[in-house]
């Protein structure tokens, strides 16, 4: 870990947040995303994973509590400044018009451009580099809408990487349910891509997912969310236990290590009998 600054890179502090009609999806959630970390946010549907991700990204403002980036509250930051540090990969992206892959990736550079500025050669090379890293360079002239789900996802990741490239400080990548629309092969590929990228450049990643194995494989720290509360948070080994899974999902599961790869895997066995709310 880099030098301790007294605070983590990205933090949620006692965040209460929600939407008109559902004002407290999150009831006082605190999480830490350390620099260079790979955090997984797990929980059943309705636990508030997406809300938390949105709050971290600055898309929704907490009703109470704070989101801090580098120790400073997010609120006064301009959207553009924030976008240069943090990029979000949404679950699905639909384009209204036929942009090419290159055009989509280049849109990641917009936060770096002044009002009437046009992208320059440096933006272009950053985009190419991001596409190379995601294996999408050969797709650059293709129309985005014609790609497969996996290819589209990789292009969006490339755009996100291009968006946070060149920041003097560490860039943050947030991914919302990235594996939901992907084939198995692409799931593996995405995981590999993210891990590889983190090895090569300073990058902090937070993923919200309900794919336990995906999280177990990639994330070094986990946050378990249930009904808008943090059930448990910490290193994957510590947090991903049968007890926690039972509490979180009402499912009996085996958590073991897969000897050939050394990976932690979770095997759901059966549903737990209904329990009274804690």
């Amino acid at each position, binding site marked *: 870990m880099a030098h301790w600054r007294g605070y983590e890179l990205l933090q949620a502090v006692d965040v209460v947040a929600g939407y*008109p009609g559902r004002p407290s999806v999150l009831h006082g959630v605190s999480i830490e995303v350390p620099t260079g970390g790979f955090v997984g946010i797990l929980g059943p549907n309705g636990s508030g994973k997406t809300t938390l991700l*949105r709050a971290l*990204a600055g*898309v929704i403002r907490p009703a109470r509590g704070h989101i801090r980036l580098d120790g400073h509250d997010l609120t006064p930051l301009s*959207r*553009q*400044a*924030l*976008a*240069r540090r*943090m*990029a*979000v990969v*949404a679950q699905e*992206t*639909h*384009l*209204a*018009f*036929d*942009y*090419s892959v*290159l*055009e*989509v990736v*280049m*849109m*990641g550079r*917009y*936060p770096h*451009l002044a*009002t*009437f500025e*046009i*992208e*320059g*050669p440096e*933006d*272009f090379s950053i*985009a190419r580099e991001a596409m190379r890293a995601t294996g999408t360079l050969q797709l*650059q*002239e293709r129309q985005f809408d014609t790609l497969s789900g996996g290819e589209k996802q990789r292009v969006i990741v490339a755009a996100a990487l291009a*968006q946070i490239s060149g920041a003097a400080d560490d860039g943050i990548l947030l991914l919302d349910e990235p594996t939901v629309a992907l084939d198995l092969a692409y799931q593996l590929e995405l995981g590999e891509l993210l891990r590889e990228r983190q090895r090569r450049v300073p990058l902090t990643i937070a993923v919200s997912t309900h794919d336990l194995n995906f999280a177990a494989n990639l994330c070094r720290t986990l946050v378990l969310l249930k009904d808008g509360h943090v059930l448990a948070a910490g290193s994957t080994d510590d947090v991903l236990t049968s007890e926690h899974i039972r509490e979180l999902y009402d499912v009996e599961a085996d958590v073991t290590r897969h000897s050939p790869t050394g990976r932690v895997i979770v095997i759901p066995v059966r549903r737990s009998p209904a329990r009274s709310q804690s």
Partner: protein
Amino acid sequence: MTVALARRLTLTVSGFGLLAVAAILTSPLVGSTHISLRRAFDRAIPFADNVDAQIFFIARLPRTLAGALVGSLLASAGVVFQGLLRNPLATPFTLGVSAGAALGAMLAITFSWSFAWAGVSAAVAASFLGSLAAVGIVYALAQARHRGLSTNVLLLAGVTMNAFFSALILFVQYFADFAQTYRILRWLMGDLDISSYQPLVSALPLLIVSFVSFAWLARPLNLLSLGDESAETRGLNVVRAQRTAFVSASLATGAAVSVGGPVGFIGIVVPHLVRLIVGPDHRLVLPASALFGAAFLVGCDVLARTVMSPIELPVGVITALIGGPFFLWLLVRKR
């Protein structure tokens, strides 16, 4: 390819610009009456006796400029509405602007409001106010339901307004006699015969404000096509961009309609043709559409004036005759 964006922009603007200039220069030369250009520009002949000059400078030139103004405003407003509503089939009239304008004009014509005001006739003023009213209602409705401007609510509100105003129009039409009804129908089909430069001068400030806003909106519109949240996480103040787009495009449409009536199909044919040629990047599509829109409407007006000479067809009939089949072809092609 992106390094070449600057070059593409230059190429696009010069190419379409040339087209627009060519259209504007040739249109005044053509008409139902034969005139001699040499005589028209002969300073020796006093203007009062120089019919060729009168026809050129009083009848044809303002008309050409009106066509260019209305065409460029409607085409670029179409692009902005399509970007805002994330729907390539949106037009400047989708959100009720033309229905409001039509109702205003209709009230003025049916009840014979006769006042003129800053050189602008009652029908024109009423149509502009009507379009603002319609747009205002749609905006208020869309705002009420959502923190920002929900595009779905916008669309629904717009379609509802169109239907409601159309019903009102039919109702008011009941009080109109046949000639008034005919006159309203002609107005609805567009009329560029302004015979003076005053309406152009009045519309100029609105044109400038709209175009400046559109220039600013080019990149935001690219981002908006990714979706509201995706645009937001890429650094766009989505609410501000949507508001700017909505207001500026509505003003542009209202100004165009008050000069030439609600000429249809420009706001959809031109953006589509332009996108086929230059691609979807709004930084190219917006200036190209403004220029091509000018050229297109001026061209349509030339046809309207000459095809059944000496009878003049309303320009909207020509744009419809071109636009209708084109639109059908688009729909068939997309499926």
